């Protein structure tokens, strides 16, 4: 027969202070676990979802970031005339050539940062359907107007609609804010590429991006362009290109998170062990009584294990509650492939919360196992004899 759950709940309630302290300890460990997952997840998705698998990006051979790439006008035209490129409704190639520069701009906090300023064409928006205006209007080609990404708008000084921003000795009106769905475009400033080229004194583009008519045609176009003697370029899947830029830092963040959480979990398991040993120790007589009443040793073991897991789940629940406000918090770091700022938001997903709860339950089970086994092995007579 099983020992009723109410017994465990009442036990936890009876030792209120100890229960809350242990649960909070385990809860904080779950919180740290969810926090690091949300951090690494947010950063990774900022760069990883920046590209689309249907798009290909062409940069100069050897460049790992657009900033260090150069594609001259003739090469760009040759790339955009490839037959495998999808057509837009008006029959022209669905391809864009862009200029990318880093510009020193002050953050709202006063420190300065390197912001990606991207010269784009109308096709740039067609190629990235996730980009849409959330405030103001689109810049008009030929005018000194720019639109800013949602996170640049939030974190960089003077990036409100109606503000003017100084780039390359010119005053640019900010006429709109776009949302790029958490991708690194959210940290950028976009304007007309044809106007940017003379103003920034750059006679060349940095990259050409196009949509493939058939994803399977990637190999053919890659082979042809990379062998083309007129240019020295590399063709990448757009999503892989951006994901590679985040690989090192994301791995580092994940590794650090894993390292911290695992070691910390060990500490929490020690704590749970302590609590449960004490719980078992102070209830020796009770255990003796339970065994004398005819509850099996297995039932006692299960009961104490359940109590420990319940305690841990309570902690895990507290950890999840604490983790909820973290969701959506914006922070920034640097894309070390391009030295530009990437802002991103913490993403707390239901899966992460679930992982946090499971993590807590495992800590509870590990911490409860030895004390529970200890309890179930008591000799009835000795246990009852004890004060």
């Amino acid at each position, binding site marked *: 027969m099983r020992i009723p759950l109410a017994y465990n709940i009442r036990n936890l309630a009876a030792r209120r*202070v*100890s229960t809350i*302290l*242990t649960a*909070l*300890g385990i809860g*904080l*460990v779950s*919180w*740290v676990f969810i*926090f*690091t997952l949300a*951090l690494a997840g947010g950063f990774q998705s900022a760069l990883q979802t920046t590209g689309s698998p249907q798009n290909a990006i062409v940069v100069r051979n*050897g*460049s*790992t*970031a657009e*900033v*260090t790439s150069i594609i001259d006008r003739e090469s760009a035209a040759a790339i955009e005339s490839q037959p495998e490129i999808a057509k837009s409704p008006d029959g022209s190639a669905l391809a864009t050539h862009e200029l990318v*520069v*880093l*510009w*020193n701009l002050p953050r709202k906090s006063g*420190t*300065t*940062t*390197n912001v990606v300023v991207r010269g784009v064409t109308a096709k740039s928006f067609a190629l990235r359907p996730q980009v849409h205006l959330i405030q103001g209007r689109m810049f008009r080609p030929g005018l000194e107007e720019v639109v800013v990404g949602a996170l640049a708008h939030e974190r960089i000084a003077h990036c409100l609609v109606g503000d003017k921003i100084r780039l*390359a000795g010119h005053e640019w009106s900010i006429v709109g804010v776009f949302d790029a769905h958490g991708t690194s475009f959210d940290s950028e400033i976009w304007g007309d590429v044809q106007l940017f080229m003379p103003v920034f*004194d750059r006679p060349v583009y940095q990259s050409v991006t196009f949509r493939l008519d058939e994803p399977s045609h990637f190999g053919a176009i890659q082979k042809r362009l990379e062998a083309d003697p007129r240019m020295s370029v590399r063709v990448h899947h757009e999503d892989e290109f951006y994901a*590679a830029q985040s*690989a*090192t*830092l994301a*791995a*580092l963040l994940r*590794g*650090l998170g894993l390292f*911290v959480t695992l*070691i*910390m979990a*060990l*500490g*929490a398991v*020690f*704590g749970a*062990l*302590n*609590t449960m*040993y*004490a719980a078992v*120790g*102070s209830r020796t007589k009770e255990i003796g009584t339970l065994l004398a009443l005819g509850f099996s040793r297995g039932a006692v073991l299960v009961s104490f294990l359940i109590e420990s897991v319940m305690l841990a789940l309570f902690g895990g629940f507290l950890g999840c509650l604490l983790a909820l406000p973290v969701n959506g918090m914006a*922070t*920034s*770091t*640097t894309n*070390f492939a391009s*030295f530009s*700022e990437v802002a991103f938001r913490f993403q707390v997903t239901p899966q992460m919360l679930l992982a946090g709860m499971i993590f807590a339950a495992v800590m509870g089970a590990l911490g409860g196992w030895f004390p529970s086994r200890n309890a179930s092995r008591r000799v009835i007579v000795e246990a009852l004899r004890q*004060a």
Partner: protein
Amino acid sequence: MKFFRLILANLMRSKRRTFLTTFSIAIALFLFCTLRTVITSFEASLRASEATRLVVRHGASLVFPLPLSYEDRLARVPGVTGVTYGNWFGGVYQDPKNQFAQFAMDVPTMFDLFPDTVLPEDQKKAFLAERTSCIVGRALAKKFGWKIGDAVPILGTIYPGDWRFVIRGIYEGRTKDVDENTLFFHWDYLNESLPQGRKDYVGIYWLRIASPSMAAAVSERVDDMFRNSSQPTKTETEKAFQAGFISMIGNIQLLLTILGSAIVFAIMLVTINTMMMAARERTTEIAVLKTLGFSDGLILRLVGGEALLVSLVGGVLGCGLAALIFHEMDFTGGGFFPNFRVLPETILAGLLLAVLMGVLSGVAPAVSAARLRIANALRKVA
């Protein structure tokens, strides 16, 4: 101190609990030292920067270079006693994951400006004499197993092409804060390989000034000189320049601090709990001690001392382990932390934290033990 043995005996009565508590504190302090060292290793470049060095770069953006012709004009600015220059090369060795810095430097002047980069005289001569040679830091050489005479192939990203540099020297830092994970090669070699339009451009100029107090005046003078040219400059102290780079890492520092605090706090809760349980179990015993004439103050010190001792031992273990492990491992986090080393300040802070944890976790049980009423406590004995 004659009661020290009593404290020890008390701790030894439940060896398991003492062990578990000590180790959970050690773990907390180990993590604290690790996270703190992540932050201090980012800041190593700040400690290595010299107050008499200024950095001159393009005013608008890192990606724009300055003309080589600025060198003479910079050298003539009053207060400037030396000039050197270099370009960030940004190449890839074998795999993009092998991150380390490469600089093309004006070799004849670089050692004058950077006396902390120490190279044996014969190696320096060999480096100076060979245009395609390079020198590498000791830590970097160790990481990749390079020896003098090895050729290092590097794929250029900013300067396209396959480059090869022959190692002619392995430098060491004069202090531990000097980065030993960089490859330096000849700016002249880079420059002559570039196409016409990209020749004679410099990424960064370093200036040495006669005294730190002249930094503001010289910076202003340099920036004024080039203000209306097509390549304006931004001049700042090396420290400010490095601080700018560190701020690029962003709020990661704040995040690590939050994490570190959460860890310490969590373990502290657990420790408080354990200490309270330990004291509660001994209610009768404490009452007996009081009956024997132990004063309230002494009981307070005995119970509190127990918590303090456990925390301190845990703290020494945790901090010591961190210092030892990271020292032995030569950990660099994939090139992100070229200077991963637990500072004495960090260890001191960790130990203080351990004491704080001991005091905080000992206070509640110690006070309640001291306040214990003998009659009430003894009545519990069945």
